[in-house]
């Protein structure tokens, strides 16, 4: 009897300890990055750009490039990913073919991103001669996040009750009308969540972009950035820390990245809730 109580107590203590440890690690990481980084974040850094001639430092071009990269990657990956998911769940009869595609997607999602970078460079930069820039980098990232978009969209589509589809088709709606009036809106929340997760990966990615989007950064319009080296924030963090040996600025970038990531996660949670309310009515 006493032995069991001791064992239960020990088990609960261990669980409690791992919970506390996890929280403590997270708090330490966030605290450390903000404490080391925020002091070096300045208006000049956020709005300026690095120049040897003028002796200025700044990450404004990197912020712009990150934004371009998000837009371009989503624009490339969303239609394909959502389209493929709709095809697989709504049109294709379930069978070996669809499970093969789903298996391929799972596998693709697990491949290290540096590999995507290497193949992206060989294929988009060299073979297709798209140059180092937002196009090559964005297409590489698009391939990389495609499985995420595909799987989250598929899960969202499968979660839409069958009764909605029956209701629509019972009124004479064709398959496509059923999909875009009833099924896709019902899956919107899941699709948006998938998008936000993807944005998180785009913002956080560096390895896949080193060879495809380049490490240089100059503030430029989107059109120019498409085919000229355009480092995102994450890449610039690597460059500042590794090539310039400027750890202060690297930590400042880290702090900015951390804040952006937090903002994305909050946004994801809020969007989820808002769409939930819309669906529930009133």
């Amino acid at each position, binding site marked *: 009897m006493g032995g069991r109580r001791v064992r239960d107590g020990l088990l609960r203590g261990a669980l409690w300890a791992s919970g506390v440890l996890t929280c403590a690690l997270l708090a330490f990481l966030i605290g450390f990055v903000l404490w080391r980084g925020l002091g070096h974040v300045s208006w000049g850094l956020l709005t300026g750009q690095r120049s040897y001639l003028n002796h200025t430092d700044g990450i404004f071009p990197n912020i712009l490039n990150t934004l371009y990269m998000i837009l371009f990657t989503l624009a490339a990956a969303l239609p394909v990913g959502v389209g493929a998911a709709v095809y697989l769940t709504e049109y294709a009869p379930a069978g070996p073919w669809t499970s093969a595609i789903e298996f391929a997607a799972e596998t693709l999602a697990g491949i290290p991103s540096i590999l995507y970078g290497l193949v992206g460079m060989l294929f988009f930069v060299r073979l297709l001669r798209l140059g180092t820039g937002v196009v090559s980098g964005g297409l590489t990232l698009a391939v990389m996040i495609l499985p995420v978009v595909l799987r989250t969209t598929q899960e969202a589509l499968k979660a839409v009750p069958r009764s909605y589809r029956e209701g629509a088709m*019972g009124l*004479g709606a*064709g398959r496509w009308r059923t999909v875009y009036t009833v099924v896709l809106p019902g899956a919107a929340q899941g699709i948006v969540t998938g998008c936000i997760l993807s944005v998180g990966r785009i913002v956080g990615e560096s390895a896949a972009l080193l060879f495809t989007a380049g490490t240089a950064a100059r503030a430029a319009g989107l059109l120019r950035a498409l085919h000229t080296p355009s480092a995102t924030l994450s890449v610039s963090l690597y460059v500042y820390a590794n090539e310039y040996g400027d750890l202060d600025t690297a930590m400042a970038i880290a702090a900015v990245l951390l804040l952006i990531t937090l903002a994305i996660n909050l946004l994801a949670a809020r969007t989820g809730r808002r769409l939930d309310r819309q669906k529930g009515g009133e």
Partner: protein
Amino acid sequence: MDAVLSTHRLSLWYGTNQALKGVSLDVPAHRVTALIGPSGCGKSTFLKTLNRMHELVPGVRVEGEVLYRGRSIFDPALDVTALRRQVGMVFQKANPFPMSVYDNIAYGPRTHGIRRRGELDAIVERSLRAAAIWDEVKDRLRKSALSLSGGQQQRVCIARALAVEPDVLLMDEATSALDPISTSRIEELITELKRSYTIVIVTHNMQQAARVSDRCAFFLQGELVEAGDTGRLFSMPGDRRTEDYITGRFG
């Protein structure tokens, strides 16, 4: 007899499992036909075949014939969209779309190309009135249909089916999830609706079948055992198995 729908030796298989075995049944105009029988005997399956909703199930196979107003519904040239507009369906569990009441009712008409606001307004009001729910929802047409009670949702679904002006209405245990008051409202509604529509219902409730239906068809293990006038079938069943079922001796 002017049958709106009639089936001839209709058989249906889900994969290798035969769910309907040579069912021949006529559905007369402006009457309520009730399909009764124990669970799993194929009532829902039979009902679904009448507007080809069974095709949503993968691996399903049909033999035999279903005629709608004299024409085969399996005719490759037939537009299944048009068929489902003529032969509408109300499901066992109320399934309003997660949209406003108004958009739910307008869904069918919009599907069939009606876009003008005034016309849609008129259809929405007419359908909600016909389904005896107008007074309860007229002030909340813009609210989500999911915020209504179960009985109200089911009547919204009936209104949604009526909005495309069908000829036949198929109702699969439309009241089985409802309380007695909502049930009797929908039963009254069915009696009301048969003036304008031909109705086929599935029910497990013998009293309900006796109250609302004019004709009754008894299914057992995929076979149609017998069909006839409800009064006759309940007072003088022609088959021993029918008698056992309606007197509650099995099922």
